[in-house]
């Protein structure tokens, strides 16, 4: 079995141009099944476009994306039921109750025993008391948990998360991180997580890909990145890369 087939996600020399502007510039990486990887980068680094191409929502200008063996977006319907995502760029319909929203998506994803699955997720994500409340009446933190519940409805093998703990208080955010990590370990899911929260990435991710201006600037484990940049936190590493100090430091060394 070659590397592409053994990877849950394989990205090869991926390029995305928007009207002449380069959003993603020839990136390549492979995510092994069951791994959890952080995608870091400042605004406009190309994280969301990369995730959108992995989801099949955006067609690459060149290069390929393969998810669970299916080429995206061409063969997306072969695998979409085995994937899911959570993103701040989308919302759940506000007038529908949490239960109605989750049950609609559960039916779309052909989840068996819908009521039982919603009940389980409601307990796990502490949503039980909000189930029959309109989604629009919830706080932003509660809405984020509903979006996470939607993302976990079909027990996805590939989970794409864009800022999953944005708008959550530190305590709830920490609890959600624990829940995501447990899900990944229990289900062997492959998780790709785009975040600006360095603590989150440091705690959850076994590998970090740092993007800048559409390119991959660095790609390693958090420990090795910290050692290589001589920093104590990923935030400092991120700032070094964002401000172009990484190359200078390495050159000096």
């Amino acid at each position, binding site marked *: 079995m070659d590397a592409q087939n053994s990877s849950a996600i394989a990205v090869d020399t991926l390029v995305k141009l928007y009207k002449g502007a380069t959003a993603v510039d020839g990136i390549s990486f492979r995510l092994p099944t069951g791994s959890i990887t952080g995608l870091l980068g400042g605004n406009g680094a190309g994280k*969301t476009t990369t995730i959108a191409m992995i989801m099949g929502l*955006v067609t690459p200008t060149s290069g390929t994306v393969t998810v669970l063996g299916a080429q995206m977006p061409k063969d997306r319907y072969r695998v979409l*039921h085995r994937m899911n995502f959570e993103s701040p760029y*989308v919302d759940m319909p506000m007038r529908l109750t949490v239960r109605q929203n989750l049950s609609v998506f559960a039916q779309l994803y052909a989840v068996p025993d819908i009521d039982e699955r919603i009940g389980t997720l409601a307990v796990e994500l502490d949503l039980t008391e909000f189930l029959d409340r309109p989604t629009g009446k919830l706080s932003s933190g509660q809405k984020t948990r509903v979006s996470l519940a939607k993302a976990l409805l079909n027990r996805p093998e590939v989970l794409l998360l864009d800022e999953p703990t944005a708008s959550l208080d530190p305590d709830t955010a920490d609890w959600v991180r624990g829940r995501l990590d447990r899900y990944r370990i229990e289900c062997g899911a492959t998780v790709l997580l785009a975040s600006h929260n360095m603590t989150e990435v440091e705690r959850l991710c076994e590998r970090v890909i740092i993007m800048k201006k559409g390119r991959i600037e660095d790609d390693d484990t958090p420990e090795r990145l910290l050692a290589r940049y001589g920093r104590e936190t990923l935030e400092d590493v991120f700032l070094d890369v964002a401000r172009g100090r990484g190359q200078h430091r390495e050159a000096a060394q």
Partner: protein
Amino acid sequence: MSGRDTGVEFSVNRVAAMVRRYWYLLRSSWPRILDLIYWPAVQMLMWGFLQLYVSQNAGFFARAGGVFIGSVLLWDILFRGQLGFSISFLEEMYARNLGNIMMSPLRPVEFIAALMIMSIVRLSIGMIPVTFLAIAFFGFNLWSLGFALAAFFVNLILTSWSIGIFVAGVLLRNGLGAESLAWTIMFLFLPLTCVYYPVAVLPHWLQYVAWALPPTYVFEGMRSLLIDHVFRADLMLEALAFNVVLFAVAAFAFLKLLQSARVQGSLLQTGE
């Protein structure tokens, strides 16, 4: 892990999920339901009273009983059918839910099927009470047209879906900046399809355009039925043939616009 559903075949279950989603929305909001009935009722009353007035003053209109009311009711099937389709689609954009939908296993053909069903549901909620109002106020019974009404309805709803599908594609490609198209595109058909007057009234060159539009055959057929008491099956078949072509063109345009939306990256950000 999952693997229960290949996601490749057409799934009635997924269509049902989307219909359920729109039904939940509709029943949670009385202004949305009221809006379905309000304007068709106002239109029907206005044209009904106008017909009542002119029929008292002109022999032809006295003979052509119900032509105006029939026209306005059939026009509303065409207009409201497209609006029902387009508004359900717009609800996804207003709710910023399109990304969730597009990322789910729902296929475009299933999405369109759900929108068609909702178009009929919304049309039924709006139009059925208005047809009874027409009986109560003007003694005009649309239902008495029987099989002819079914033929009119099928042809008009097919046209409305074709336009709705095309508009949905434009919205996917261009975002909410193209929203006004959903509300106004059908008015282009109002003068050209000769809703309230015969095709012969149009300039000769414009008649060719009119006869290329399926609803023209329906409105001519309705006048033939109400004025001359003749059901023109030939007109209905011609309308059906044009509708098949129009539907195929709209579906093709939708798929091309969806493809273009994926290239432009407009599926995640569907704002202006």
